[in-house]
């Protein structure tokens, strides 16, 4: 279904992603873990074509998407939704308008200028918001919502695209543990109920373990682990994060109880990763 072949991205002398190869035969929920700067974001951005790869190919259902340009590239982007760490909504527009942006690839500039969305699309947008439990916020401005609600609006925008793949770049990194759980459950539900492929960059081990069918570990741009959550032992995690024996799982946890106990430890690890 999705095949990534020796994908490489260089920024000058730096290699952000180094010959990454991934084969995904059927829709799965995949978690990519690794410390900051390991190339996780660049990999996802290349799949969505926000960033152009230096070398290598991305093939989706037999079609090479890494060489598309212009309208064909934008059409691919509409099939392959992206969710960002900072939500990337338009803050001054209302929630439904933000969700309707998921259909922009099918709309002309003139229709967009006068916000002429079909009523059926508006109904569908509100239904998606209802599915995610935030329909009552429909007429509010996006900036008036909390972080967790904004991220769910972003997920609604992604669903509005009716995509085959949902890419999530650190979707819970700026959320509190409660909202992080809600957002991850939403993504899991979308994967299970709709059968869409979800690829999420995660910075915590236990999130990847709990929600994903498959975990890919990246370190310094290379893929150093690819397997099931069960295969992801503490030893394997140490290799991915390049940490020594002092490495503790709690340090990369979002569990509410472990987090409260190890708040200081998590802070240290985050600082060390920056």
């Amino acid at each position, binding site marked *: 279904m999705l095949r990534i072949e020796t994908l490489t991205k260089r920024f000058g002398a730096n290699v952000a992603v180094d010959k990454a190869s991934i084969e995904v035969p059927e829709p799965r929920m995949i978690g990519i873990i690794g410390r900051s700067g390991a190339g996780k974001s660049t990999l996802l951005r290349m799949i969505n074509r926000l960033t152009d790869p230096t070398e290598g190919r991305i093939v989706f259902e037999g079609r090479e998407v890494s060489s598309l340009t212009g309208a064909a590239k934008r059409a691919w982007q509409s099939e392959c939704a992206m969710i960002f760490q900072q939500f990337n909504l338009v803050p001054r527009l209302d929630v*439904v308008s933000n969700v309707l942006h998921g259909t922009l690839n099918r709309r002309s500039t003139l229709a967009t200028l*006068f*916000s*002429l969305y079909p*009523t059926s699309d*508006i*109904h569908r947008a*509100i*239904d998606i918001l*209802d599915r995610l*439990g*935030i*329909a*009552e916020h*429909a*007429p509010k401005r996006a900036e008036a919502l909390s972080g967790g609600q904004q991220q769910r609006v972003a997920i609604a925008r992604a669903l509005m695209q009716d995509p085959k793949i949902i890419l999530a770049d650190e979707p819970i990194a700026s959320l509190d543990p409660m909202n992080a759980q*809600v957002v991850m*459950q*939403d993504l899991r539900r979308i994967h299970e109920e709709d059968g869409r492929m979800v690829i999420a960059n995660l910075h915590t081990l236990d999130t990847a373990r709990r929600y994903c069918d498959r975990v890919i570990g990246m370190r310094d741009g290379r893929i150093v682990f690819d397997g099931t959550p069960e295969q992801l032992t503490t030893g394997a995690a140490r290799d991915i994060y390049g940490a020594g024996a002092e490495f503790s799982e709690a340090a990369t946890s979002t569990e509410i109880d472990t987090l409260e106990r190890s708040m200081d430890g998590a802070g240290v690890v985050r600082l060390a990763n920056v």
Partner: protein
Amino acid sequence: MADLTAASGTPVQDIRDSYLAMVQRRRLYNGVLLAVFVVLMVSGFYVADARNAGGFWDGWHQILDFPAGVVSEAWEKRANLPALLVHYLPSLLETFNIAAVSTLIGCIAGLFLSLAATRGLAKWPLLIPVFRRLSDVLRAIPEIVIALVLIFMMGGGPVPAMIAIAIHTAGAMGKLYSEVNENVDLKPLEGLSSVGANWSQRMLLAVIPQVAPNYLSYALLRLEINIRASAILGFVGAGGIGYELRNSMSWGQGKFDEAAAIFILLFATIVLVDQVSSHFRNRLIGTGGH
């Protein structure tokens, strides 16, 4: 997740209906606004056209006659161009000097005006409206009026033009800079207050580094505008290249080659300022670092 949002309990149908009603209302307002806009534009155009001496429809195809005349005559006498470019270089330098000095003085005055007129930064918050109105006044008077008055009192020459442009620049920069100042991050300012720094120290160390790249690019844009303004003031006797342009630009004197040389010089100057300004702005942002 249902338990997180069950509080509202509004049925989806109600939300749909109320949102659609809102959309319909918005579309109605937008449609009315668009119609009013189109009617005003069209009727305004016809009123203006009726009051024209010649009429737009009779005259519009002659718009290109003057440039065509300049280009063809300059082309015939193209052998003269290099000599003319050298000949007019000193008056171009005079025009550029007027613009540069007035930009420098105007921007420094605008800096103080803007700091005094920005909420949260002003040393005397009660006087903010006074400084705002002051920069409004400086902006409101056309520079050509100030220049004519000063030329009448002091005689022709570059100094009245310089003063006139500097006054307008101070008002404009006071406005633009204070808008930049309003977007300043106040945290460094609070940090410096906490160590007991005085107002000038706070402005110098907490505000100026943040706003410098924007200040610089506005100042260089202003320099471009002022080069043009100083050329125009030459028409009314302030010297520089504008005076030469007025003399060579009149019909039927056969001096269009001179006019073309002056246009080329002005164009080259604007391009040069633009290149230099983007170079310095990039360097400032590059080393200043965001």
